[in-house]
């Protein structure tokens, strides 16, 4: 195998450029593609067997730290989880010796926590950690490098922001605390939820998650704009905004919360209703947009065209879209002249692309999947053909 491919295969994470190189290599070497597909299957198989044989990650934490966690620091559920995990761990280690490596790693992490705790609190008279970094007692522990001191000071501002968030919940006891919270600052942020669903948060958006694996429904609260890809489960998935409640079982859709709530459905079905109980809900089909202005009793329904409805997200979304339409949309998005050969015009394409990847990369991926080629013509236009 060429050195470049070997190198890519061993990257911790594949970039889009890595994947493009791999796809090109597949065309020349079908055995490589087959091997990589099987390798992915093998990895998934290893993960699946681990999931069924080994106690959960939370249980591994309790097992690794049971000598440091007396029952006073555990909930009833945790005590029961630990008891069950203790009975299973020997067999798990026999089947998967790597369990011992994970337990060892968690103990190392607990040691690191101990150290940070000791630095912060295990001396009377220590002030806030940021102040400690400059104080004489801190020097007695061991003078940190200048770089570390600067890092601690610069992080103080971010720390205050997070605290304000937690404080907001506490100051309003009527609002239950979320299980997890995420916020996108200046760029788009991808959030992966416990149930396998994914949410793309637009800049300045935030998502509070109110469910875990034991919850009977999956409930989140969105501020700002988000694109949701929800895994199909019997438990409904509900997105709350200030004035609307959107309920789904498994689908792909976008939610915007500027001046009311706007839900754009890509696939599946969703119901959308005002949070005001007096109002009436509606059901949306793919390609429909539900709009609920502040104070409205019932959402209005409009048709929209993908990806027009998702320009804010920077995503180019295609669902069974004929290639002729795909190249027209790409032409518009990138202000390019792109054509497709007659034999490919009706071929349906399903995929979602970040427009920031650029026309060259996106076309290259599509061509790769079609077994096609992109040719640049003398007038600068691009032609996709087999």
């Amino acid at each position, binding site marked *: 195998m060429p050195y470049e491919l070997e190198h890519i295969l061993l990257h911790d994470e594949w970039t889009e450029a890595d994947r493009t190189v791999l796809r090109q290599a597949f065309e020349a070497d079908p055995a490589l593609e087959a091997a990589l597909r099987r390798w992915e299957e*093998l990895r998934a198989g290893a993960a699946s067997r681990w999931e069924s044989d080994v106690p959960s990650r939370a249980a591994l934490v309790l097992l690794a*730290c049971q000598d440091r966690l007396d029952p006073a620091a555990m909930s009833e559920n945790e005590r029961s989880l630990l008891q069950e995990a203790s009975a299973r761990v020997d067999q798990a280690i026999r089947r998967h010796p790597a369990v011992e*490596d994970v337990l060892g790693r968690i103990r190392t992490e607990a040691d*690191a926590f101990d150290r940070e705790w000791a630095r912060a609190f295990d001396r009377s008279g220590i002030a*806030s950690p940021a102040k400690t970094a400059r104080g004489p007692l801190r020097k007695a522990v061991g003078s940190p490098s200048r770089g570390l001191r600067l890092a601690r000071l610069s992080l103080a501002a971010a720390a205050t922001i997070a*605290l304000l*968030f937690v404080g907001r919940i506490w100051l309003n006891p009527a609002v239950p605390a979320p299980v997890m919270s995420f916020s996108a600052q200046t760029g788009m942020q991808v959030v992966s939820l416990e149930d396998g669903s994914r949410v793309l948060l637009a800049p300045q958006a935030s998502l509070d998650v109110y469910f875990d694996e034991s919850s009977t429904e999956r409930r989140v609260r969105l501020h700002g704009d988000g694109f949701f890809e929800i895994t199909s489960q019997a438990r409904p998935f509900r997105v709350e905004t200030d004035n609307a409640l959107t309920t789904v079982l498994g689908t792909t859709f976008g939610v915007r919360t500027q001046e009311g709530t706007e839900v754009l459905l890509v696939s599946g079905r969703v119901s959308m209703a005002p949070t005001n109980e007096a109002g009436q809900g509606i059901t949306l089909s793919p390609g429909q947009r539900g709009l609920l202005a502040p104070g409205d009793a019932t959402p209005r329904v409009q048709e929209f065209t993908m990806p027009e409805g998702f320009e804010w997200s920077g995503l180019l979304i295609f669902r069974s879209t004929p290639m002729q339409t795909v190249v027209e949309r790409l032409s518009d998005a990138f202000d390019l002249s792109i054509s497709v050969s007659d034999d490919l015009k009706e071929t349906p394409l399903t995929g979602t692309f*970040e427009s920031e990847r650029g026309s060259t990369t996106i076309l290259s991926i599509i061509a790769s999947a079609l077994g096609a080629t992109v040719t640049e013509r003398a007038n600068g236009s691009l032609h996709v053909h087999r």
Partner: protein
Amino acid sequence: MPPIADTVQLASWVREARDGSEAALTHLLRALESPMRSFFISRIGRRPDVDDLVQNALLRVHRGLGDLNDPNRLKAFAMKGALYELQDFYRGRYTPKERLFDIHEAPEIHDEPEVSGARIDVEKALSSLSDKARRIIELREYGYRYEEIAEMVGSTEAAIKMQVKRAFARMRDAIGLVLLWIGSFPPLER
């Protein structure tokens, strides 16, 4: 500026917070935030994820205060929350990026033909791996980086990657033989 905090003060804030004092809870969380942040940075480096990890670990503390029967056990309680968050972070390290909105995947083509008949039994493939290779693959799937795996098993990153490379090469050679074998048959007549 938060008041001076030591372990006695922390326990006192826990008691007051459990009794409903908003000020005590705010002081408590503010005091915990900096060591939490330092802890996560020490484990995964200075990345944007640290903000989420800190916030979620603090939320765990907040939500679980009712279960903390002995305020002097706050350290163990907070550590547990931080370790849970770290394990969740490992779990999400690769899969979301690799599967997100199929951006990084080849798009689905509906008339795509089946590529090859060279499927292999996953169980058989797993059992054919060396113990070392399987251990590495499992740790990788848990969410650790190769560098971290090397540290955990007392090896070097290069040696770990060599194991993975060998395992992949063996499987590739086996599949290459299957494809060659399939290709040696004449096409079926209709």
